[in-house]
């Protein structure tokens, strides 16, 4: 059994196509990554194996290009352009993350293939293909700032700057939405027999990913205030330092919403003589009123729980909290999940190689666990030009002599 998208042929080009390409390639599509002969920009993005910035050593590239095949092409040379056209002719979907007008500049963009009626062409650009900002320079930091995420994240102390959440989320958000657009266009191709251009704007994607901000402005006429480790408008702290120096997140400020959870919490606190006056039946009214109406009663309850949590180790706070029905969590580093057996129970990791490292490593499998079409790891990210012969000779009919000449001239 392989993934759900097997049988589809996809071409991917350019930096911003990487995430969308990964999601589809991991799901079984035959995806060919087209890189310039000097290598994709992703290869120059760290971290690197042993911190050596080699062509095959980027772990950023390794993660985002799993299950893809890779060829090289210089699209500025006529022979490279010819090969590109021949590749496009054999493909269902092009993911164009090269930047506005890069392919168009060579006459190799969507308009050049208007006779290929089945073709789905997904353009992923920072601001979309139209509008006054379409040529504006940007980066992850700038896109996250303009899209509104930054201004919602940071600290209670507003003399500190707002914070861009780390992890290149701008490209993930745009890539996830690009896959939505591609799959929608694929569905419409079934009905119409026609492909189309899907114009994905990263700026809009980010702007649709700020939850309560929209409600605050459109209905209440206010801008949400950033707060440390919790939502705007929430009085109690959620992020608390535990006895072992690790943080836990007590969603809801540690105040239960159900009687059973309240009883469990008090029994647990009693084990350490830490329940203070919380057994008083007056606190049960907190179960039935909105947080904003809780006043001093709620504050005292939350403060007492916070004091208790500060004297227990984080893992106990997390596990015991969940066991009594509180949606509490640890504030883990990503890699700390590697040791949590729950994910192994779910077969979440795939064990595979990474270029330049002698031992096998574990990769996250996928964001969906599909019963009939499991997402499988077929190949690690391709080495530069790894599939030139397989694609150009076997599939496009280029002879090996021709390929050698193309290589000499830097076309591939």
């Amino acid at each position, binding site marked *: 059994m392989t*993934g*759900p998208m097997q049988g589809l042929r996809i071409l991917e080009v350019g930096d911003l196509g990487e995430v969308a390409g990964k999601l589809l390639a991991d799901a079984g599509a035959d995806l060919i990554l087209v890189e310039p002969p000097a290598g994709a920009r992703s290869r120059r*993005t760290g*971290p690197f194996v042993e911190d050596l910035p080699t062509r095959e050593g980027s*772990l*950023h590239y390794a*993660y985002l290009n799993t299950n893809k095949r890779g060829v090289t092409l210089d699209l500025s040379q006529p022979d490279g352009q010819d090969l590109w056209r021949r590749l496009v002719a054999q493909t269902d979907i092009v993911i164009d993350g090269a930047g506005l007008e890069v392919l168009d500049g060579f006459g190799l963009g969507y308009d050049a293939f208007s006779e290929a009626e089945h073709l789905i062409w997904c353009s992923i650009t920072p*601001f979309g293909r139209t*509008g006054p*900002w379409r040529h504006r320079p940007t980066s992850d*930091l700038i896109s996250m*700032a303009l*899209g*509104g*995420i930054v*201004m919602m994240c940071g*600290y209670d102390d507003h003399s500190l*700057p707002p914070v861009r959440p780390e*992890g290149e*989320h701008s490209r993930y958000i745009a890539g996830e939405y690009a896959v*939505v657009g591609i799959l929608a266009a694929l*569905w*419409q191709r079934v009905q119409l027999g026609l492909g*189309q*251009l*899907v*114009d994905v704007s990263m*700026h*809009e994607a980010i*702007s649709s990913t*700020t*939850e309560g*901000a*929209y409600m605050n402005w*459109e*209905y209440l006429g206010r*801008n949400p205030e950033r707060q*440390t*480790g*919790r939502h*705007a408008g929430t009085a109690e702290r959620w*992020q608390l330092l535990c006895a072992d120096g690790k943080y836990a997140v007590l*969603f809801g400020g540690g105040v239960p919403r159900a009687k059973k959870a309240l009883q469990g919490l008090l029994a647990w606190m009693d084990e350490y003589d830490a329940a203070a006056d919380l057994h008083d039946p007056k606190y049960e009214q907190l179960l039935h009123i*909105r947080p904003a109406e809780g006043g001093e009663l709620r504050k005292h309850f939350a403060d007492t729980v916070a004091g208790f949590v500060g004297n227990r180790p984080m893992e106990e706070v997390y596990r015991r909290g*969940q066991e009594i029905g509180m*949606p509490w*969590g640890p504030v*883990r580093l*990503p890699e*700390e999940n590697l040791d949590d057996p*729950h*994910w192994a*129970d779910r077969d979440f990791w795939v064990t595979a190689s990474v270029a330049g490292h002698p031992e096998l*490593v574990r990769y*996250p499998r*996928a*964001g*969906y*666990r599909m019963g*009939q079409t499991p997402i499988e790891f077929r190949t690690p990210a391709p080495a530069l030009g790894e599939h030139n012969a397989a694609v150009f000779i076997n599939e496009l009919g280029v002879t090996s002599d021709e390929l050698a000449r193309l290589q000499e001239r830097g076309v591939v």
Partner: protein
Amino acid sequence: MCDFTWIIAGPQATRIFADLGAEVIKVENESYLDAVRGSAGLHNNFHRNKQGITANIHHPKGREVVERLIAKSDIVIENYSSGAFARMGFPYQRLKELREDIIYVSLSGFGHEGRDADYATWGPTAQGVSGMTAVSGLEDQPPAGWGYSYLDHTAGFYAAIGAMMALWHRRQTGEGQHLDMAQVETGMVLAGVPMLDFQVNGRHYERIGNGSRWPAVAPHGIYPTADEDRWIAIATETDEHWAVLCEVLERPELATEPRFASNEVRFQAREALDAALGRLTARFDADSLAAALSERGVPAGACQTIEDRMEHDPQLAARGFYPTAEHPELGMHRFEGLPMHFSRARWRIDRGAPVLGEDTRTVLRDLLGYDEREIAEMTAEAAI
């Protein structure tokens, strides 16, 4: 689509389908309302374009309504805690009996399988577990995390993608399936790079605030401007950007000062650099400074509020990102659009979110084959 979602993560997934033209029917039960109905504007944004019915699953006739709907649906989706939907009488096996090729998407915090399947999450919990919280923040401060439930969006995106892939597979093979989604896993797939870095290089992730580690460039940060709590993000990539920045800030001589003359020394001295820059940017208006830098090729932008985006952002306005539609009680409002344009199709926002049970009668009559007499009876019996 038979939509048993609530709060935000599930509704985010079905919103995508509804915006794309799918017939999404949200099923509610008056004894167990969507908590987000208490935030009417949020509810409106996440349930626009959907129909809404009520059905009392504890009444045999109400259950029959739900079962007829499932039998007519391509996809059933819910984001209750693990196991809750089965306890309501709808395990995957039952769904399959009602429709052999059904696609069932369950979206819970830790998934339906695994030793911690009973654990529950809200967005901030899942952000804490997956690592999203710990990696975000200034170097010398506790984690800042996220000021909202980012992973409710993300889980919704992956649920929508997974469901669309399952639909594609069903079209090829006729086979349905169960997608057992875990919100925390949708966060962990965003953190594959630091996980590899740890396994290969033994490096634990460290917060870098608004800086840039790969590549190691400076200046790269968020700086104050003339107005209170108004900030500008600046991300230089080259020495040329740096020189332009100094010029625009009216301190061209700074560019060649030995302590800032190359990226390497700037990166080493980034704390002092950021402090010096902050004193300069504080003399400027955020938007005009961002415009001046952008025009000269330096990536820069104001840290936009929702007010900025909805009222002043010329790009979002030009792309028609905030279309309006009517809600029966809230009236006409703008909505956040779908972030893409299609050349052969157009997404639309035709209506706001359904008020409770708004479409019960039409769905029962037109889709599920009930007549008016049956509907009246069931209403009288509180089955619907």
